[in-house]
């Protein structure tokens, strides 16, 4: 720790931290544009200039973003020289900046607006003609409103330092400088959407979020991305039961400040899917929409029929890596206690492509969020055991959690499931799995659920719902409890937090975990720290 002086007041801060971050820790905001904590400081915007005592009694102008705290440093944040410079930089940044805030997508979260309000002049002394460079289509996801750009170069540094792809650079000189791509080499990397997040103004925008409702209308939901087993922490922006945007949420141990494009835009696939809004029951060989009591009667009746004829253990359960730890745990208990069957399995979708950026940001090959957790909860069983059981006739019925819109059954699994006498499925759309079922419970997608999941690093993280499931669809958690209850078994905990406490007492590696402990940054299984920061 180091003791420093700011405007004649002494503070204790972390040694070696840069001045902007150190001041932020103290609740003091040093305005800046080009500095971003996830990128190397560049010192080009000049907004963060403060005065530092260079020799005893003599103060000089320094860039706060490049100053590393040492004991005894003495700063002035509010001297006339500092305030005049901020006013000057604001004026310079605004003279050529269009006043198109009313239709700029950044309005409301724009640093230029915020700092202009705090440090600007309030009137313009500029009577010349503004520069109007043309708008540019930089790549599949990103458009550059060149007029709005303040050339802070966060985006070019991102492509240099984080992705290592260096698609963006500056062309021309001086006031004609523009962010640009090389001809024929668009901004098309796995993380391109981040440049829109880190752009302090409305210059870089995602095409996805163009001309959408104003940002202050959204409800913000902190959760994590279900796109792969990394589980990047995110904030969803939600309005009228619809997600409009996903932004990465800082978690140094998981995703740093970033997320991949696949994860960023994956909410569309879920949100636009043709969802089941009521349960289905097979009638005369066809699945028909029925009421919940009807579906529940059919499910319980079918299960009891299998158990009555074939005996206990004739029913198996198959969990899902799209389902939460709590759901998979309840499923296992349902099987063990209501069906009397220890037989569990997990139907995994084949791995996709893994990718690690220059900075270490990792996209996992496992394109589901909770394979680790589902395995932990389901115990020793495997899908092979289940298939074997179906083959040898010892398993006659299955209770399967589906819920992955991107997953199709492999032919051998589909064939095996087709042989079953009775199949209950939780799913979110009419998947090929649902088409084989006798009863389909309309479930929830990850954006509609409470609960925890365990990522590929063994980090347990909390999922929070953006909105409730549509129509008559229900959270899978509740349905599992209800089925058990109908079969005379009380599964205990009435919400995921209570179930997690039960898990903590019973599942290896989860000891001591509580919902509060998991918090919004997650916690490692077994309370271990991650072996290395994957943040990038």
């Amino acid at each position, binding site marked *: 720790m180091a003791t420093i002086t700011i405007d004649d007041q002494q503070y204790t801060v972390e040694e070696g931290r840069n001045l902007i971050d150190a001041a932020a820790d103290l609740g003091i905001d040093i305005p800046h544009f080009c500095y971003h904590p996830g990128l190397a400081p560049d010192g*080009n915007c*000049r907004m963060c200039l403060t005065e530092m005592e260079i020799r005893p009694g003599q103060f000089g102008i320094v860039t706060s973003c490049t100053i590393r705290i040492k004991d005894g440093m003495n700063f002035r944040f509010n001297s006339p020289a500092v305030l005049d*410079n901020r006013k000057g*930089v604001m004026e*310079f*940044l605004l003279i050529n900046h269009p006043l198109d805030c009313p239709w700029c997508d950044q309005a409301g979260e724009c640093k230029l607006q915020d700092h202009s309000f705090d440090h600007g002049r309030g009137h313009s002394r500029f009577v010349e003609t503004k520069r109007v460079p043309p708008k540019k289509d930089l790549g599949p996801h990103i458009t550059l409103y060149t007029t709005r750009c303040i050339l802070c170069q966060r985006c070019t540094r991102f492509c240099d330092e984080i992705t290592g792809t260096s698609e963006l650079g500056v062309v021309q000189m001086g*006031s*004609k400088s523009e962010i640009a791509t090389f001809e024929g080499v668009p901004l098309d990397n796995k993380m391109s959407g981040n440049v829109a997040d880190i752009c302090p103004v409305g210059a870089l925008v995602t095409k996805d979020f163009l001309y959408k409702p104003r940002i202050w209308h959204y409800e913000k939901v902190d959760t994590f991305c279900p796109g792969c087993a990394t589980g990047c922490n995110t904030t969803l922006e939600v309005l009228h039961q619809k997600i409009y945007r996903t932004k990465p949420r800082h978690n140094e141990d998981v995703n740093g400040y970033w997320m991949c494009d696949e994860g960023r835009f994956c909410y569309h696939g879920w949100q636009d899917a043709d969802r089941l809004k009521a349960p289905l029951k097979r009638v005369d060989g066809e699945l028909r929409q029925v009421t919940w009591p009807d579906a529940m009667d059919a499910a319980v009746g079918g299960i009891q029929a299998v158990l009555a004829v074939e005996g206990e253990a004739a029913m198996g359960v198959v969990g899902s890596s799209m389902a939460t730890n709590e759901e998979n745990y309840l499923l296992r208990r349902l099987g063990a206690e209501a069906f009397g069957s220890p037989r569990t399995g997990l139907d995994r979708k084949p791995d996709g492509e893994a990718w690690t950026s220059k900075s270490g940001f990792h996209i996992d090959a496992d394109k589901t969020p909770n394979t680790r957790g589902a395995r932990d909860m389901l115990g020793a069983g495997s899908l092979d055991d289940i298939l074997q059981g179906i083959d040898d006739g010892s398993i006659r019925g299955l209770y399967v959690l589906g819920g992955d819109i991107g997953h199709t059954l492999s032919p051998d699994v589909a064939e095996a499931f087709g042989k079953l006498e009775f199949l209950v499925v939780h799913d979110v759309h009419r998947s090929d799995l649902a088409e084989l079922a006798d009863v389909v419970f309309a479930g929830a997608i990850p954006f509609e659920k409470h609960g925890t999941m365990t990522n590929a690093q063994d980090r347990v993280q909390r999922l929070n719902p953006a909105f409730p499931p549509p129509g008559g669809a229900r959270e899978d958690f509740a349905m599992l409890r209800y089925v058990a209850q109908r079969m005379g078994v009380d599964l205990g905990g009435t919400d995921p937090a209570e179930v997690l406490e039960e898990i903590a007492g019973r599942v290896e590696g989860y000891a001591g975990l509580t919902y509060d402990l998991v918090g919004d940054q997650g916690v490692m299984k077994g309370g271990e720290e991650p072996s290395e920061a994957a943040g990038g």
Partner: protein
Amino acid sequence: MAAPLEILTADPTAGADPGDMDAYMACGGYGAVRKALKSMSQAELIEEINASGIKGRGGAGFSTGMKWNLCADRFPRYLCANADESEPGSFKDRLLLESKPHQIIEGMIITSYALGINLGYIYIRGEFFQIIDQMEAALEDARRHGFLGANILDTGFDLELYVHPGAGAYICGEETGLIESLEGNRPYPRLKPPYFPAAIGLWGQPTIVNNVETMAQIATIVDMGAETYKAIGSEEDTTGPRLFGLCGHVKNPGIYEYDSGVTLRELIYDVAGGIRDGNRLKGVIPGGISAPILTPEEIDTPMGFGALGKLGSMGGTGGIIVMDETTSMVDALLNASSFAAHESCGQCTPCREGVPWMNDILRRIRNGQGRDEDLDLLLDICKQVHGHTVCVFGQAPGVWPVRTILVKYWPEFRACIERKELVVPPLEESYLRPDQYEHIPPVPGNFRLKTDEADAAG
């Protein structure tokens, strides 16, 4: 009247092609290299340069010995000879590059030997393509004669020198911009600190960036010995010969060699033959466009770094731009400002936005659309840019000409605005007298009107 010197301007090949290495050697060329490598230790050489009192010839007048002494104790170290001459009004490096390629190479060999450098670059302005070819050939000759390569003169000292063509921007001459350019990047000057590439430079290693004239003079110092060299000029103004390039409205423009004690008046009226057409002097820029302008009342000054600094100007490159009474200072400043606006690299906000904005305002004034508030606005923009930029570009060619010309020729700008057209007032009414403005040290170009007098004069 100071006496002309013939040291740097001496013919090194006795009439032969300057690139002719045999002719150069026949006239004693590479003697300095032999002397340094064969008879002097590294410490003795560094001491010799320190003792010579030479100030770097790039423009800032920074002590060369001190720069060398700042070299961090790490290896490898690199040498960059800065031949990106692009300061408007300056053409002395070009003369040296054309007439004395081997003397420059000599200086670079000696410098490298003194500082334990084994790799050096000559960064030559891209537009000097002929010079680039000549220098390549000269390096090849030197290599063939064993002055470059491994084990030079059997001393065990290895050195390679390469030519690097400049990327066509003024900012490539800023020493950290030059280093970035050498590394293959946009020539954005680096953030300070570290203040000196001698600590962290090319590829992160200690790097000496010296002007090519400085390099040539290093050979001269070794040749004549520090004691003799030191007797030329003065410690405060810089020792050794200086090259002054006179251009503009003088009768005999050209490069002239004097010590730094020669006065501006002598250079204009005696050396360069006075003003064209018998006109009277209106203003003179003493060392390239960044060097703050001097009015006719201020030309009885020695041309040393120290003496010009006291007037709020600077020695600069020695490129002297003379303007006679027919010159519109509004036009002249617009010209200087257009250069700065064009050459601002665009890295940092105040320079990228402020410098072109001043250019826009000046163009408007020149076109008869100036507003009463424009001059104060210009001075205010100067204040907002000054000292707030990554490198010194924002202030040197960006702010200093505007602030100085505006303040000193305030009445002419006022007249332009009031009459809504470009006017060149009679000489006496166009500029302020030295008691009507003041310089606030230590920075050059930091001039302020003594307001009441200015208004009265305007």
